[in-house]
């Protein structure tokens, strides 16, 4: 059973790798020409560059070459000749810090809001929180981000305009960490408030569904307090959809928040992806997409394997 699930995951990853490879090559472009426009490249030098960037031969040859590279754990070279793996390794921690923290915050707050809203649907709490979270969830990150920049960096200069730290800062130790935190308040706000709706809605729906179940009536009939009925009987059963959602989002976390990272000049995987798409830097694009796909697939697999622990109903002999 577990072996089969892992097999499916690996199969999916292979399909994604293949799709990514050909997807980026649908548009006919010549990265070497695009990058070295305006310079005299000899044929020999051009051939050498094409070799290094794996642009030789037919698309199929390139694909085989790419798979061969991958099997050696080599992600190839970016257009400026840096190993893709080290470019990614350099940017990943920032993204993990920002998006990872906000994902946890969003999930915890969102689920909590969803539980309360779903427990008493159409109450004042439900209407207010659902209204607010929906409003921000439907606002685009770019707009929300720019609005915050305008309000809290430009109009009222309370927060920095971007980056992780002021290059002229002399702060060290704890103060440096606090300064970085100061830089991450606005992007973090976009990511947390913007995505609360995702969790609260899913959780609210699950609560609504569960609250009609007979066993809750039974629990109440036994004389349990309402909060206990909710905490012990309703919530555990209603958490399953949210677990799937968290798993998926943990995967996407690796990919960074492209728009937020760009708006606030945060040097993470998301900004790197934007840069790669401009080249187009095939190797870098493929590397980042591979990482994102692998993370999503792995997170889903883990959620899949953990499911039976949370819900005996999915346990199969």
């Amino acid at each position, binding site marked *: 059973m577990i072996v089969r699930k892992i097999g499916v995951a690996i199969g999916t990853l292979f399909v994604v790798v293949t799709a990514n490879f050909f997807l980026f090559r649908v548009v006919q472009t010549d990265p070497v020409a695009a990058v070295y426009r305006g310079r005299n490249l*000899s044929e020999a030098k051009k051939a050498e560059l094409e070799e290094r960037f794996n642009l030789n031969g037919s698309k199929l040859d390139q694909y085989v070459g790419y798979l061969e590279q991958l099997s050696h754990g080599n992600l190839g070279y970016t257009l400026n000749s840096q190993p893709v793996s080290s470019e990614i390794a350099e940017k990943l921690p920032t993204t993990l810090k920002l998006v990872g923290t906000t994902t946890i915050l969003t999930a915890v707050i969102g689920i909590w809001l969803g539980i309360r809203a779903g427990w008493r649907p159409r109450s004042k709490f439900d209407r207010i929180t659902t209204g607010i979270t929906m409003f921000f969830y439907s606002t685009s990150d770019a707009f929300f981000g720019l609005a915050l920049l305008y309000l809290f960096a430009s109009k009222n*200069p309370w927060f920095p305009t971007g980056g992780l730290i*002021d*290059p002229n800062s*002399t702060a060290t130790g*704890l103060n440096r960490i606090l*300064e970085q935190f100061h830089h991450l308040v606005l992007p973090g706000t976009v990511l947390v408030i913007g995505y609360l709706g995702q969790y609260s809605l899913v959780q609210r729906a699950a609560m609504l569904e569960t609250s009609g179940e007979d066993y809750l009536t039974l629990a109440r009939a036994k004389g349990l307090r309402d909060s206990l009925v909710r905490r012990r009987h309703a919530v555990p059963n209603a958490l399953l959809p949210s677990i799937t959602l968290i798993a998926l989002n943990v995967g996407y976390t690796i990919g960074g928040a492209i728009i937020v990272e760009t708006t606030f*000049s945060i*040097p993470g995987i998301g900004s790197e992806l934007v840069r790669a798409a401009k080249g187009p830097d095939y190797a870098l694009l493929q590397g980042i997409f591979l990482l994102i796909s692998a993370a999503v697939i792995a997170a889903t697999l883990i959620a899949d394997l953990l499911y039976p622990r949370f819900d005996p109903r999915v346990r199969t002999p």
Partner: protein
Amino acid sequence: MARKATRSIAATLAIAAGLMLASGVTPTADARTEDEKLTFTVGVSQEIDSLNLTNGYLVVDYEVWNLQYATLTDKSDNDFSIKPGLAETWESTADGLTWTYHLREGLLWSDGEPLTAEDVAYTINRSVEEEWFNHTSITGNLTATALDATTVEIVTSAPDPRLPMMDAYILPKHVYENIDTEALTTYAAEDGVGSGPFTLTEHEPGQYWKLARNENWYGEAPAVDEVVFRYFAEADALVTSLERGEVDAIDSVPGEQVETLAANENIEIVQGNQGGFNELAMNAGDGLGDGHAALKDAVVRQAVNWAIDREVLVADVLDGYGTPGAGLVTSASPAWDLVVPEDETYSYNPDRANDMLDGAGYADVDGDGIREMPEGTNPLKFRLNIRSDSENDKAVAEFVVPWLKAIGIEVNVKAVDSDQLTTIIGLGEYEMFTWGWVPFVDPDPELSYFTCGQITMDPDSPGYNDGNWCNAEYDALYEQQHVELDADRRMELVQEMLMVFYTEAPYAVLWKTDDIMAYRSDRWEGFVRQPADTGPILFTNSSHSYQNIVPAGTSEPTETTEADTAGNGETDDEGNLLVTVGAAVLVLLIIGGIIFLKFNKGQADRE
């Protein structure tokens, strides 16, 4: 129950107090004492891709190299003319093929190693051997020999009118000889060993890079201690950072922000040009593809030129921040610009365009408002490709369609990605497109792009001639100027070429594209434009501004260092104060939340 709640509130308050202490009080204290350097911070919209001279290709990379590496000869801020650099004097043999450069005495690299003729010869020869693409356009035909520690002999295999100008970056042999060909391809080049006014000290990828003053530089020491470049991915954030004073200058101002910044008395906007221009290109039909036959006729291309109102484009599309175009621009220096006689200058004259087309037999035979070819078929319907990522292109298309409609030409606009456009041009499947060029200092490369040999005949190895225009007279003149060592004569030849291009009109040059930069005039003065009067202040092909700027209102830079630092400190204080306030608000919210929760819980419990 009640007791428990009180305890957690007390605990939260204690944590809050700790937070406030940590964020509010301590950081400002050391910010004041340590930061006494005079730092000039530039906000940039581009991130370094590679500092390796054999890989990097972005403007921001060049700016670091311009600061870090001195060249044999320097470029005057006035007009890019030759100035002594590492070499103080030079002379040539009568045939102009062998040049001998005499280096300054006692030159040192920033790490203290002596800088000798060996370094120069090593860089030139290795760049030729390994085809370093940023070097070969200069060094491709050269062989260098160090005659002694301060004398280097450079031999060119073909006459080169650019010599004795030698603006190739010279690298430290003692660093690079340890990096072999293979290792060099992936070398990060963050060694910071240089010979220019500033050298790299720190590079935080995706965030910022810093250069410190090089005490071993041969020139007069700049007032600035440190130059910092800070990257912003978002154009509005870049502008905001200048307004707030987080940075002292920015490399680009988006068109819609110009007015706001111009109104700020502390900020000065500089509109500079180094030859960049935008054009409406036409497919003259000498290459591949299915371009319309009418555009093979120079009369039609000229008529298009007469139908365009460049004044309106500059006023409306560029909000006035540009100059109407007059012919191909081939150099960063306006000295090379084409001088067109008044009566031959393309201006907005649709009547003249209509007369020309009537005279050449392009009549509208079927009365649908679109002219046909002289044989009465094949109406003049042109495809115009614009770049989907360019707002300016879209605006231009909106003007061009009705203007050409007025002279009986139908234009169908299609927006494509820049990469796709390159492919479309290579295949020759277009009548017109909009794009731009930024030339080098020497006109040769830009001139070479429009020779017949640069027309794409195999889409797999595209050339630069994107007008598919081949002209024997132009090509012959190109070959002549390519080896003409007499500067005046070469200038005449180039002018002739530009006039041929202008009359044959494969391009309708729309405007000269200005770089719009801005700086804090309340903090800094002494910026140098290159070329004089018309050029930009930063990213100029050399580093004159960085060498010359001083704090505003003084020629004695050190005196104001403290004031400036205090100013910076204040913003920091304010920032930290606000963090504290923010943290306090957050803590209050949490406390409120907890109380609300407990209160609710109590109620629920009672149910």
